[in-house]
């Protein structure tokens, strides 16, 4: 068969979500000759329609359907309806991501073994090891064009990086450079090199930054084996009496419900929508949600320990110029419990434009103290702190008891409380970020609380034993052989690294496994 596919075609694999996981998986399957229907809830933009305007872009790309944030995290107070800053558009959050592409460290796949029994944490070892993922990391880096791999030069450092680097060297850090970035430092793969626009988060208008929107997805469609359907909001995954999934009910652009039959279904809607879809697919046979016999769907929600440090200097920095996140200090990413916490964190350059600086520097603040900081904008440098947070059973995506969305389905409630380890790590990271900038001559340093979550992980986690998680080492549901999860929700633990590279590597590995299983008739 070739695209487009009939709704009654039960030979297709339906992939739900077109971001890092779903977009990559759809292409990898299509390249193998497997028929794919790729459902994307959002619209399709192009580099030419992206806008260098923070609020306008936010409204263009973000997932703004109603959600609720609860728990003791500050996001629940400051942004009670915006727990996450992720996207609803073709390409998903690969339109918005900054491009940082780091491999997990070996010990991070063995969090339970390495960190031990951390009170209150539901740590597990991943059911796979770094060595097994390495060939897929290689392949992912190659197709994404990650700098400082495969002979690709590093990016040039911008003003913001120069400040970070000077401080890092004076402080005695060893590992500070412009990082491994899926942003072209020279033309590659038919895409141009970075022009230092400074709007990585708003969709890259030159397409120098890798996004499934203009790489994986058109490549998949070009095979004739992948049909992309936009404005297609998945509502429910359906199954037969044998417990195998049979198709996906979705709402099309006109709000009409459609049912696409399927040979297998891959859920890649990011760590809030993916568990929500499984929970909303509850049936008599799966009363607590599809593939949720373990009760783990939606649980162990992780969002990385995060925070930012902004520092004002006597001279201009103009941090908004150039690649947003091409700058990293990796010295703190090791596991060294003598610091007072397990796991590690990365320090990465980050800049906001004036509109978002006002929104995020200190949400809710007002008056002269706040405006004095804003007046320092041109002289500010900034960094983001991102580290491993502890999975906890109570940190969970659940279905709201009352509020329904436009399709009549319960909206997600995203509950999060910091673990004591997260707090200790953030305190340490704030102090080290401050030390970097003070070493570079800062006159003022500001600790900035976490933004709405960009790294959403763990809510359909991989586990060796079915009772500990939702999917196995291939991202295949423990309970349903032809149901897969293909996004960051499968992460058993979060690691210190930005997750996209690992999501892509896992999707490539999953595609190989699915092809083998389909070839042998197991699926």
């Amino acid at each position, binding site marked *: 068969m070739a695209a487009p596919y009939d709704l009654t075609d039960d030979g297709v694999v339906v992939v739900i979500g077109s971001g890092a996981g779903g977009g990559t998986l759809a292409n990898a399957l299509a390249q193998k000759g497997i028929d794919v229907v790729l459902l994307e809830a959002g619209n399709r933009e192009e580099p030419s329609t992206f806008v260098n305007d923070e609020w306008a872009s936010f409204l263009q790309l973000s997932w703004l359907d109603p959600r609720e944030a609860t728990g003791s995290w500050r996001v629940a107070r400051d942004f009670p309806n915006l727990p996450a800053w992720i996207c609803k558009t073709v390409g998903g959050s690969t339109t918005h991501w900054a491009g940082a592409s780091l491999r997990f460290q070996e010990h991070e796949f063995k969090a339970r073994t390495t960190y031990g029994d951390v009170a209150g944490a539901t740590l597990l070892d991943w059911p796979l090891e770094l060595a097994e993922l390495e060939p897929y990391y290689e392949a992912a880096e190659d197709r994404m064009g990650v700098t400082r791999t495969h002979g690709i030069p590093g990016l040039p450092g911008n003003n913001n990086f120069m400040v970070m680097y000077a401080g890092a060297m004076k402080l005695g850090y060893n590992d*500070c*450079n412009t990082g491994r970035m899926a942003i072209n430092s020279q033309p590659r793969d038919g895409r141009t090199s970075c022009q*230092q626009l400074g709007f990585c988060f708003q969709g890259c208008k030159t397409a120098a930054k890798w996004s499934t929107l203009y790489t994986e997805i058109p490549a998949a469609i070009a095979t004739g084996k992948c049909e992309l359907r936009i404005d297609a909001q998945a509502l429910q995954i359906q199954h037969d009496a044998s417990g195998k999934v049979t198709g996906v009910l979705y709402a099309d652009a006109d709000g009409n419900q459609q049912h696409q039959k399927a040979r297998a279904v891959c859920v890649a809607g990011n760590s809030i929508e993916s568990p929500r879809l499984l929970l909303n697919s509850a049936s008599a046979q799966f009363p607590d949600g599809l593939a949720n016999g373990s009760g783990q769907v939606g649980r162990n929600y992780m969002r990385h320990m995060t925070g930012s440090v902004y520092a004002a200097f006597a001279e201009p920095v103009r941090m908004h110029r150039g690649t947003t996140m091409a700058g990293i200090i990796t010295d703190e990413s090791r596991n060294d419990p003598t610091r007072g916490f397990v796991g590690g964190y990365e320090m990465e350059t980050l800049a906001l434009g004036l509109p978002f600086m*006002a*929104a995020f520097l200190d949400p809710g603040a007002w008056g002269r103290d706040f405006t004095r900081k804003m007046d320092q*904008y041109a002289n500010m440098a900034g960094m983001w702190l991102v580290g491993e947070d502890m999975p906890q059973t109570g940190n969970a995506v659940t279905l709201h008891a009352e509020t329904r969305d436009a399709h009549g389905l319960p909206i997600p409630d995203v509950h999060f409380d910091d673990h004591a380890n997260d707090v200790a790590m953030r305190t340490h990271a704030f102090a080290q970020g401050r030390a970097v900038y003070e070493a570079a001559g800062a006159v003022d340093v500001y600790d900035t609380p976490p933004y709405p979550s960009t790294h959403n992980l763990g809510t359909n986690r991989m586990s060796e034993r079915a009772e500990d998680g939702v999917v196995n080492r291939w991202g295949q549901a423990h309970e349903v052989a032809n149901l897969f999860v293909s996004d960051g929700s499968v992460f058993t633990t979060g690691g210190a690294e930005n997750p996209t590279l690992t999501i892509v590597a896992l999707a490539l590995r999953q595609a190989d496994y699915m092809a083998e299983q389909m070839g042998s008739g197991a699926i």
Partner: protein
Amino acid sequence: MAKYVLDRRLFLRRSGTAVLAIGAGGMAVFRDPSGAWAITLDHLDASTAETLLQLARVLYPHDQLGDMYYAVVVEALDGAAEGDAEAQEQLVSGVARLDAAAGGRFVDLDPEHRTAVVAEQIGDPLVQKVRGTAVVELYNNPLVWPVFGYEGSSADEGGYIDRGFQDLGWLDAPSAEASPPAYRG
């Protein structure tokens, strides 16, 4: 609703904004008499608009910014009242609460006392509504960006690759390993 003009000359003379009615109809015009700026108000009367403007200034005080930038906040609040009588009523009743807390008209207080009243009323729904609107509208106005050194859209200018992304100049340059040269074709 009456038509109003908030007249800058009277504002300057009386140290509080003044109101000049210019006739009956559905729309008020909130303008600078020099013609430098004007906004239209469809739902708010001039007295309410004047109070909201001064409240926005107390919340996000930048002495280098003229009233025209804060008037944009008022315009947004007025726009949000479109087709929403309840929102409009909340602005009007909120201003009444603010005046009550001020023991008279809020706008008649000196700046120091306005700040004290706002600090006391910071949890009030009106104050939070104006704060939430102002923190977006004030800083999202491209006309204020040059004041803060922010340059806005860059794609139409070819980005910063030839326009100063490495012009820091006051710290030693990183090593070539840490920061390789930019590709220039």
